[in-house]
């Protein structure tokens, strides 16, 4: 299968080959391949049940594939948990957002990677450096233009859907040093909030971070993606350039109404 049309020859930043995952008799991933290059926005589209989520979960460490190989900047990696992927600089905004409603915004941004006080208070008493975490959380939200919340110590359950999405995106953007994966980031949002999230995605790319965008929203995908990975029946069908194909072509490929030439050949 060809590499992306606009990045010939480069080593992919994040690459997967032959990923397999079965749940009983259901095959979620069937020798799936994946390539993501430095600084691009790669959209992943596919029909319901095509295995997009399983692919993303494998890349973000939330699922351990039965077989196959994942390489980060050419080096093989084996993610046993989301922590491993996070440590490698891969952050994920899950469709469910993975926030804890009863904790504050600052607590949520640092959940699982809290900062501790310097000195014995931190090493022996394991005391958190709440001031630093609140300051950094506030900085990150302001950076992304999301600081309309009243207080960084507000509980997430008091936020609107759009604000929660903003917190989840800010968390990923703040810690994702290499790759940010976003699963349906605009699915639950209104028109204006969706636009804001798309701008956030472009912001993230501007900082040199690669973005994987899973979406059913074809206009959004065609607007901001550099390449489109079409997933079908548990594997990558093809990768297309949004400039040389139409939305109808993409939908035809992902539903099986049409077979791309390179696969047919």
């Amino acid at each position, binding site marked *: 299968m060809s590499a992306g049309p606009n990045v010939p020859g480069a080593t992919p930043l994040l690459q997967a080959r032959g990923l397999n995952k079965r749940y009983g008799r259901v095959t979620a991933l069937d020798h799936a391949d994946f390539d993501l290059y430095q600084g691009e926005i790669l959209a992943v589209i596919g029909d319901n049940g095509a295995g997009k989520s399983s692919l993303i979960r494998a890349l973000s460490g*939330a699922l351990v594939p039965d077989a196959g190989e994942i390489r980060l900047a050419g080096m093989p990696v084996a993610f046993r*948990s*989301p*922590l491993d992927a*996070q440590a490698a600089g891969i952050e*994920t905004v*899950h469709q*469910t*957002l*993975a*926030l*804890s*409603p*009863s*904790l504050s915004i600052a*607590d949520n941004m640092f*959940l*699982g*990677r*809290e900062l*501790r006080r310097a000195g014995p208070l931190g090493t022996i*008493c*394991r*005391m*958190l450096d*709440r001031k630093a975490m609140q300051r950094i959380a506030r900085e990150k939200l302001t950076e992304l*233009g*999301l600081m*309309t919340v*009243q207080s960084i110590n507000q*509980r997430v*359950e*008091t*936020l*609107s859907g*759009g*604000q929660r999405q*903003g917190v989840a995106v800010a968390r990923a953007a703040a810690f994702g040093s290499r790759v940010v994966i976003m699963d349906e980031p605009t699915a639950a949002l209104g*028109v*204006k*909030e969706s*636009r*804001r999230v*798309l*701008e956030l995605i472009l912001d993230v790319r501007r900082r040199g971070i690669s973005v994987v965008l899973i979406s059913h929203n074809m*206009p*959004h995908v065609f*607007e901001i993606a550099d390449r489109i990975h079409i997933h079908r029946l548990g594997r990558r069908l093809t990768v297309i350039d949004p400039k040389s194909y139409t939305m109808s072509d993409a939908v035809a490929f992902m539903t099986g109404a049409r077979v791309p030439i390179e696969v047919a050949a």
Partner: protein
Amino acid sequence: MTDIGSSRPAAQAFELVLDKGESRVAEFEVRARSPLQKLQHFLHANPTAVPAIVLLLSVAAFGFTVGSRFLSTFNLSLIIQQVTIIGVIGAAQTLIVITAGIDLSVGAIMVLCSVIMGKLAVTMGLPAPIALLAGVAAGAGCGVLNGALVTRLKLPPFIVTLGTWSIFFALNLWYSASETIRSQEVAKIAPLLQALGTPVNVLGARFTYGSFFMLGLVALIWFVLNRTAFGRHLYAVGDDPDAARLSGIRTDRILFSVYVIAGVICALGAWTLIGRIGSISPQAGQTANLDSITAVVVGGASLFGGRGSIIGTLIGALIVGVFRNGLALSDVDVLWQEFAVGWLIIIAVALDQWIRKVSA
């Protein structure tokens, strides 16, 4: 928030109309709230407010009806003594309930540990500190069993601890041969076991070392829950385990350790129990199980997890203590004490449901 409508060209045709619409994105609507809604929001933001108010009201009510016999420093400090055991066991229960679990075996662990401490020190003549440590180790062991069944076999905590409640209680009857070790024997051979019963008189108030031990434990747990990552993770796991796992928290490890910690706290509860009653009886502390759940629930914790505080539990235990003590001083039959505590639980849970329905 950035004004996106006018500053940048809309990228999609249908978004052109955005210019004409409102330009605010995800802002807070300032709606007029009725006083009842304001109260609901206040209680939602301050979970310990309800129990604190109830405690003050009940103290005032009994002070009014019973008078100085109730309000005397001696009697009020006696209530603190009376709630020492529920306070300690309730602390263990709080940690479990925050993770959306429940531990029905806490009372049985406590009695089993007290019997082990007594048997080893008094009957077998081992040094008291070693007997104490053995009791704590036994508590941890009970917690390991509960935690392993919850996290490895993925059984519901209610079922696991319902089973281990019977198992630990049976072990307790077998090991003690259903015999009580008399207080005088404990005092003669292993006074350390009764150390937490040592009285301290402060200006007419009568406390025991056990009261201070309970308050110290509550302070320590407050620190862990609010100032350490482990504490934050307990809330996250109780709130939404999937979200916690995706955030990189090892949810099984957190759950397992919380049952072990609860077991250790129950063993410390055994030490306070011996201090409180002097003797060591396999039939002691029968009500601790349900009393601890009552304290946690009346203290404003949610049995659905993610909500609750250790201060709330302490206040919850005090409310139950005040009710029991006040009704006893009013010469009301014990059955009406149970009646009142029963209503207290139902009202507390109903209030929690109402507060949870708060609209964002």
